[in-house]
């Protein structure tokens, strides 16, 4: 227990590093996933192909392997950056595939009448997507999207093993190995601090589900 209390500042700074990592990755993944979802439902065959390829590739590659490629492959061809930048890139690429799929199922759940109405008042496909389809799709995708975000927060723990300094998992690792604290209390602390991020997200989901649930 002392191991956690003595290093509370290490944990708190780790919490904020993890939070920053997740906010950036989440925002980028949300945008990229939305773009890919619109590609996947668009009338242009090439864009549909791009979206499908994106999702299939990223969803079927383990996150660890993606991070390996980015963190150790990019510097080898001369693209250098900070490890947290690499981690954000890898995490958001990986997550965007899941965001895309969650949103696409939301798009498919928008009732046909809505889409036909949009078309019959003369909206083009992109107008219908922006003003009619996506706003409704987002609402009905909120539960799966929150699950994706919670999974992403937990996946961000992998980043600590890829040279990102100072996030929760890296700090736990250095407390147990470099500083020789007993593993049980230190890692229990890491887990509890992850709960500070994931449990509120789950509770938020419960509230949001009740409030914006689409009534059909």
């Amino acid at each position, binding site marked *: 227990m002392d191991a956690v209390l003595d290093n509370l500042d290490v944990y708190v700074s780790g919490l904020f590093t993890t939070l920053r990592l997740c906010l950036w990755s989440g925002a980028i993944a949300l945008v990229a996933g939305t773009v890919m979802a619109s590609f996947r439902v668009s009338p242009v065959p090439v864009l549909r192909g791009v979206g499908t390829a994106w999702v299939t590739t990223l969803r079927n590659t383990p996150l660890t392997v993606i991070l390996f490629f980015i963190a150790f492959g990019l510097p080898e061809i001369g693209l250098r950056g900070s490890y947290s930048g690499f981690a954000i890139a890898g995490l958001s690429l990986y997550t965007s595939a899941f965001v895309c799929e969650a949103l696409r199922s939301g798009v498919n759940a928008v009732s046909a009448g809505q889409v036909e109405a949009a078309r019959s008042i003369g909206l083009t*496909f992109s107008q219908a997507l922006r003003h009619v389809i996506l706003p409704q799709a987002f609402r009905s995708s909120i539960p799966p999207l929150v699950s994706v975000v919670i999974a992403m927060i937990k996946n961000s723990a992998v980043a600590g093993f890829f040279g990102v300094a100072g996030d929760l998992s890296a700090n736990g690792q250095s407390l147990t190995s470099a500083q020789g604290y007993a593993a049980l209390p230190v*890692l229990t602390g890491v887990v509890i601090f992850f709960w500070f991020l994931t449990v509120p997200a789950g509770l938020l989901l419960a509230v949001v589900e009740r409030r914006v649930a689409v009534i059909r």
Partner: protein
Amino acid sequence: MTAPPPGLRYDPPGPRGRRRVAAGTAVAVVLVLVVAGLALARLARQGQFAWSRWAPLLDPRDPSFRPLWHFLIGGLGSTLLAAGATIACSLVLGTLLATLRTVSARWYRWAVVGLIELLRGVPVVIAIFFASRVLPEIDPALDLPLIWYVVIGLVVYNSVVIAEIVGAGLAAVPRGQAEAALAVGLSRGQSLRLVLLPQAFWIMLPALIS
């Protein structure tokens, strides 16, 4: 999940639309080819395509070819072993947890639910790290092959995920089934085992596979 027929979301593009799509595609293909060419040129300048780099993977006469493939196939074997052991153990544990959750009396159900919810919030890497660091600390005599720490960590994580899926599957079996099972005199355990779980299994199969 099948998409509604595309005709619902947009009219099939007419001649002008098709021309625009073709033009846009051509431009995009050219752009992608240019970017890919630049990237490949950069890789080539740095000697990433030198045959000596790829020979261990592709050339059977290379001295490293056999050890490398041996290593990769060994890795595939270990991955399959870890995955198989994890799937088996976490299916059993997950089903047990879900059953426990549905049959438990109110005074201890919160403990089962709490356990599931808390374990669900543990990152899987941390679970594996936990197993590999904490178990030897608790019992220094414990000398498991490393792969079992992976399996333990994965089982802890996946059994609660599976418990959620099984729980949802059980909830999706029509109520009448449980009532009918009780009405013909099955105990709650029997009705779960003989009536509810077999039906829930088919409902949750897609989620389980993913």
